[in-house]
C-alpha cells in the first residue's frame, strides 16, 4: 500500500527540486533532516540497516554541507558516550543506530537522560539476535522504554524527516534525549516522495543550538558526582517532571511545525472514531496498511476506527484517554513482544486505560514480528476476529499471513 508512484527525474535542476518532492529512502530522509538541523557532532558506528544514514552524513561532511564534525567511532557504546559528553559541552549532537547497536548502547542511554542531554538519535527498528535477522521488529527500541528517552514512532519517510527536525526542538526544550524510530526496510530502504525542506526553512523553525555549556572553566563543577539516596530520588523525580513537560512540548512543537511546514502528526492520531464499534490501535508502518484495510471494511459495512500511537515516551495517556475513554472494544496490533507478557503497545494501552470510566475489552494481536508482512487481508482478519470474538483473552493472538 505504501508504494506510492511518483518519480522525480534524475538530473532535475534546482527549480524543479524546489517544487517537486525528492524520491528518497527513509534513511536518506533522516540524513537530510539531521544535516539541516546543523549538528556540531555526529558520532556513529555502522550497523545494518542504519548504515545509509551514516554514509550519507559522511558524504555531507566531506562536501562541507554538514558543517559539524563526524566522529567515526569504534562502537555504538562509544558513539553514545561521545554524544553525551559533546552535548554536555553545549553542542547539538546526532547519532543513529539499530538493533544490537542500540542494545550495546543501553548503559549509555540511561546516562544520556540522567545527564539531561539533548541528543537526537534515529533508531532503525531491527530484530534482535538470536536468531540473527535483519528485518523490522520494534522490540529493540521498545526494550529501551525505561531509559528516559523520548520516543517517536514514524509511519513513513516524510514523517521520519519531519520528526527528526521536531525531535531537536523537543529535546532542547525539555533537556531530555529523543529517539526517532523508523522501521527497517519498510522505511529505512523504501523510497517515497519526500518534501525535503530547504536549509532556510529549517533554520526558520529550529533556532541555533541552545544547549547549556556544562563545563565552565571559571565556575567548575563535578557532573555525575556520587549522590545519596534522597538526591537520587529527587533526580528521578525531576526527570519525570521533564517527561510531563515533553508531552506538552511535543504537542506544541508538532502544531508549530504544522503551521510552518503544512504537515503535523499529533501525538496520537484518530481516524473514523465517531461511530466506531471497534477501534484498531497501531503504530508505525502497519498504520498505513490499516488505513487501507479499514476503508475496505467500511465499504463492507463494518464501523471500524483507527488510532495511531506516534509518541510512545512520554506515553500520551491524556490524549489516548480522550480518544478511547468512550470506546468499549479495542484491538491492538504489535510488531514487537515482551516475552512472557504480550505486545508492548497493547500492555501500555491497557495500563493507560485502566482508570477509564467505560469498561473495555482490549485484545492484543501479534503481527509482523520478525519483519513478516502485514497486508490488508491480515489486518481485516484481525479486525473481523475482534468484532466477532465472544471472549477477549489476556494472551496475545499470533496472526500470520497464510
Amino acid at each position: 500500500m505504501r508504494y506510492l508512484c511518483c518519480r522525480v527525474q534524475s538530473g532535475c535542476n534546482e527549480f524543479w527540486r524546489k517544487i517537486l518532492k525528492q524520491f528518497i529512502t527513509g534513511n536518506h530522509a533522516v540524513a537530510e533532516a539531521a544535516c539541516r538541523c546543523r549538528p556540531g557532532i555526529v558520532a556513529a558506528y555502522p550497523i545494518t540497516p542504519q548504515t545509509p544514514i551514516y554514509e550519507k552524513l559522511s558524504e555531507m561532511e566531506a562536501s562541507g554541507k554538514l558543517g559539524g564534525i563526524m566522529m567515526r567511532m569504534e562502537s555504538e557504546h562509544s558513539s553514545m558516550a561521545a554524544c553525551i559528553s559533546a552535548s554536555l559541552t553545549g553542542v547539538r549532537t546526532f547519532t543513529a543506530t539499530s538493533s544490537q547497536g542500540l542494545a550495546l548502547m543501553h548503559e549509555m542511554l540511561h546516562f544520556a537522560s540522567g545527564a539531561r542531554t539533548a541528543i537526537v538519535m534515529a533508531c532503525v527498528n531491527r530484530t534482535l539476535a538470536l536468531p540473527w535477522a535483519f528485518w523490522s521488529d520494534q522490540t529493540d527500541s521498545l526494550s529501551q522504554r525505561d531509559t528516559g528517552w523520548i520516543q517517536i514512532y514514524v509511519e513513513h519517510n516524510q514523517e521520519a524527516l519531519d520528526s527528526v527536525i521536531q525531535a531537536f526542538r523537543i529535546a532542547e526544550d525539555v533537556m531530555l534525549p529523543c529517539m526517532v524510530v523508523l522501521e527497517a526496510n519498510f522505511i529505512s530502504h523504501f523510497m517515497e516522495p519526500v518534501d525535503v525542506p530547504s536549509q532556510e526553512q529549517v533554520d526558520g523553525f529550529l533556532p541555533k543550538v541552545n544547549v547549556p555549556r556544562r563545563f565552565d572553566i571559571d565556575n567548575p563543577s563535578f557532573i555525575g558526582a556520587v549522590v545519596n539516596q534522597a538526591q537520587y530520588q529527587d533526580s528521578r523525580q525531576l526527570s519525570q517532571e521533564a517527561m510531563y513537560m515533553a508531552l506538552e512540548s511535543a504537542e506544541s512543537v508538532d502544531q508549530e511545525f504544522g503551521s510552518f511546514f503544512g504537515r503535523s502528526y499529533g501525538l496520537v492520531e484518530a481516524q473514523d472514531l465517531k461511530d466506531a464499534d471497534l477501534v484498531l490501535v497501531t503504530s508505525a508502518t502497519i498504520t498505513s496498511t490499516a488505513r487501507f484495510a479499514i476503508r475496505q471494511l467500511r465499504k463492507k459495512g463494518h464501523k471500524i476506527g483507527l488510532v495511531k500511537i506516534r509518541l510512545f515516551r512520554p506515553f500520551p495517556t491524556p490524549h489516548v484517554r480522550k480518544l478511547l475513554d468512550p470506546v468499549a472494544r479495542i484491538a491492538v496490533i504489535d510488531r514487537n513482544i515482551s516475552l512472557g507478557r504480550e505486545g508492548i503497545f497493547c500492555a501500555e494501552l491497557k495500563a493507560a486505560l485502566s482508570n477509564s470510566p467505560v469498561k473495555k475489552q482490549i485484545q492484543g494481536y501479534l503481527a509482523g514480528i520478525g519483519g513478516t508482512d502485514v497486508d490488508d487481508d491480515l489486518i481485516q482478519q484481525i479486525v473481523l476476529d475482534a468484532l466477532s470474538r465472544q471472549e477477549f483473552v489476556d494472551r496475545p493472538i499470533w496472526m500470520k499471513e497464510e
Partner: protein
Amino acid sequence: MMQSFSDVHCDVMRSGHSACPGCGQAISMRLVLRAIGTRAIVVTVPSCVSVIAGPFPNAAANVPMYHAAFEVAAASAAGISNALKIQGREDIPVLAFAGDGGTFDIGLQSLSGAADRNEDIIYVCFDNEGYMNTGIQVSSATPTHAWTGTTPTGNTRRKKQIMEIMAAHRIPYAATASIGFPDDLMHKIQKARDIRGTRFIHLLSPCNTGWKIAENMAPKISTLAVETNIFPLYEIIDGLQYRITYHSKGLSVENYLSVQGRYNHLRPDQMDSIQTETDRIWQDLKEKAAKHTPTEF
C-alpha cells in the same frame, strides 16, 4: 634543563578530598592537575579518582569534571574535545582520568578507538595494579605473583604491557610517570599539553591498602619501583622513538617487593623469576632507546 616545580604553590586539587590517608593516587592527581592548571576539563570514570573527587555537592578538583561510565573515558574525553573544536575553544585541554581497570581491561576498546582516531586528549592511567575501588581484585595490570582478593595465592598472569599497546597505535606521545619523581611527572604532563593528538600517561599510583604498605609509603614505593626497574621512566614519541627519562640505580627487585604485604607469600624462586623478567624488559627498553639519538628532554 629540567624545570623545577618546587616553587609551584597553586594546587588545582583541593584539600578535603575523600581518598584514604596517604593515597598514592591522590598525590598523582594533585601533581597532574598542578602541572595542567585550572584551564582544563577532566573526564573520570568509576575508579578511585571518581571517589577522591568527592561526593555531591563537593568537588575536590578546581576544574570542571565529568564522571562518565566505566569503559568510556577516552570516548567521552574525545566527545568534549571535538565539541570544543566546533565551539572554537581548542585551547582548553581535555584529560581522561581512568584507573588500570578502566584502561587495561574494560576501557581498552574505547581507548584504542580514540588513539586510532588520534583524538586530541591527554589520557592519564592511574595504575594501582588492581580493582582497588571495589576492594582489591585482580586486573590485567596486576603484576605476577601479587596477592589480590581474587588471586589469594598470587596472580598467575603477567602485567599487560599497556605502553607497547599504546605505542603500536603510533600516538604522538606516551610516557610513564611515578609520584616518586614529581618533577619528571609534571614535566611530562606539560610536554603532553603542548602536543596535539592522543597523549597517554601511564602513572604508577600505589594503593596503600591493596599493596599492604604503610600510609606513609606511597612516594617511597613509587621511587623504589623506578630504581629497581620494575617501572622504568620513559617516553615514546610517535610510537617509535623510545627515550629513557631517568636512569635508575638498578637495585634488586627485592628492595621493592619485600616491603609490600601483597608479596609476603613470595618464594625465593618466584622472586628470582620477577628479577629475571624485570632485567629482560629493562634490557629490551634500553635497546629500543639506544636506536634513537638522545634529544633534550
